[in-house]
């Protein structure tokens, strides 16, 4: 590949990131102190950028510096070629911002794999087509079985996804979440907004995309054309979070009480609406109860009372998967990355002061 072709790739990446940031060439030019024609030339690959310009451009576009220099995963570059300048609606822009966050996270995971401190897991995927909610529920139980989760509550969804080969980051995002598979690495991002129940549902949803074989998915809300697909994934996520069997066993004789359902929602850490949906699906709920309970979401105290006030932290203060976090600290201990970089890779889960003292205390002059 000639040098020019590669600069053209950088230009294309820049253009995509610029559109995702909602900036015109003129806007970007002003922010980085270059002429608009220079931005046009950079995007067409006919002008190089130096390290300082790269820093300014990456900062203006809010992407890591290596983002513009690395090719997108093949599935995403195919999509990018379909995006035109004048179709920059809010939805496509948000979709691209989501993609930028996802790819930057994928690069973080790949960096640690490259440093040999993180071993990519075998990706848990099915060959069987999943085209109905019933099939999705069955698949969720298969996943639970493969990951030895039985029908127990999943303490850490991050950890479960990691064991399935999918690295999940909880971060600021325009949508709910997105996931991608690049070779033997699977990564997903989940929005920090909303309550923990919603984050867990999104993470389970992204796990579904991996398992049923989607190479790329973004969840910015349900598009009409994708409603069926989303219903399948919702069923998968619900069954991962709170298996129907658990409700059937409790409610088989006389149906389930509101207190019992509150306790299940608290122990399995699902949203109240998901618990009601699953109870409905299990057939342990009368139509009247469903209508009435849907209108009265239990209070936080009711949920906490049900689990004896034990704090539950998954996807609340946790931002990155446990194995990934360990790999970051290991890379830092081995002197492969600085403390500052380790903190960056932890995405807000720790600060500099949280790193163990004593590492690198005696550096020769």
């Amino acid at each position: 590949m000639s040098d020019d072709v590669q600069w053209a790739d950088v230009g294309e990446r820049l253009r995509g990131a610029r559109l995702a940031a909602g900036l015109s060439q003129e806007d970007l030019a002003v922010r980085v102190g270059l002429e608009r024609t220079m931005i046009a030339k950079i995007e067409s690959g006919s002008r190089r950028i130096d390290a300082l310009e790269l820093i300014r451009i990456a900062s203006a576009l809010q992407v890591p510096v290596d983002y513009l220099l690395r090719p997108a995963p093949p599935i995403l570059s195919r999509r990018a070629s379909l995006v035109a300048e004048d179709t920059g609606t809010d939805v496509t822009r948000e979709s691209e911002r989501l993609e930028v966050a996802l790819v930057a996270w994928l690069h973080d995971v790949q960096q640690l794999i490259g440093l040999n401190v993180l071993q990519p897991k075998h990706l848990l995927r099915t060959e069987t087509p999943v085209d109905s909610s019933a099939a999705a529920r069955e698949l969720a139980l298969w996943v639970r079985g493969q990951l030895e989760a039985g029908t127990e509550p999943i303490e850490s969804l991050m950890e479960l996804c990691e064991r399935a080969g999918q690295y999940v980051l909880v971060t600021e995002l325009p949508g709910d979440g997105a996931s991608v598979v690049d070779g033997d690495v699977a990564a997903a991002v989940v929005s920090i907004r909303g309550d923990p129940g919603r984050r867990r549902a999104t993470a389970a949803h992204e796990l579904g995309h991996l398992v049923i074989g989607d190479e790329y998915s973004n969840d910015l809300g349900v598009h009409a054309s994708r409603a069926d697909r989303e219903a399948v994934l919702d069923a998968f996520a619900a069954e991962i979070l709170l298996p129907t069997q658990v409700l059937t066993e409790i409610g088989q004789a006389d149906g389930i009480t509101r207190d019992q359902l509150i306790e299940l929602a608290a122990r399995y850490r699902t949203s109240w609406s998901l618990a009601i949906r699953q109870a409905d699906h299990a057939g342990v709920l009368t139509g009247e109860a469903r209508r009435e309970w849907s209108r009265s979401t239990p209070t936080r105290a009711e949920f906490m009372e049900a689990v004896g006030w034990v704090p539950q932290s998954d996807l609340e203060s946790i931002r990155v998967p446990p194995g990934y976090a360990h790999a970051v600290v290991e890379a830092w201990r081995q002197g492969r990355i600085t403390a500052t970089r380790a903190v960056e890779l932890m995405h807000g889960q720790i600060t500099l002061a949280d790193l163990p003292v004593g590492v690198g205390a005696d550096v020769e002059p």
Partner: protein
Amino acid sequence: MTEEPAVVAPVWVLDATCLSHFARAERLDVLRDLLVDKECWTTRVVLEELDKGVAEYPALQGVRAGDWLKVAELDTLDEVQLFASWVGRTGSGERDLGEASVFATAELHGATAITDDREAVRVARTYGLDVHGTIWLLAGACRDGKLSEPAAGNLIDALRSTGMRLPCTGAEFSDYARRYGLL
């Protein structure tokens, strides 16, 4: 008759930590004289970092004004990519970016990098880079007879008075340098 081999000056790449404190201590000329037999480089990224401090410390303008420093642009694709991979190791805070540019330049030239950020030194050495701090530089100058130990001590105190974080004081310099076999 045998031809004399051409003498190639060692190449050193200086980071903002070293340059800024020599400038602020008004000893940039001393640094230049100590390094007269070296080919000295810094980077455009480092100069930009220093420029941002000029309003508070006008003496920093002296770094750009000097013609003894070559400036690495890092503008080929390979160079920019090497820079980005160093950013992946140092981090992307302003100082980290300067260090990454210095390490990339040092790697490209097979040069010695000079920085006083111990964490950055530790990481750069893991990747096989020859990297040292100001104390090592001064001890070398003492060994070469360019600087007396008391003069080095005075210089260290002048640098420390500008807030530079160095592993020893002027008074401790001789002991410290001997402990590490530098003198």
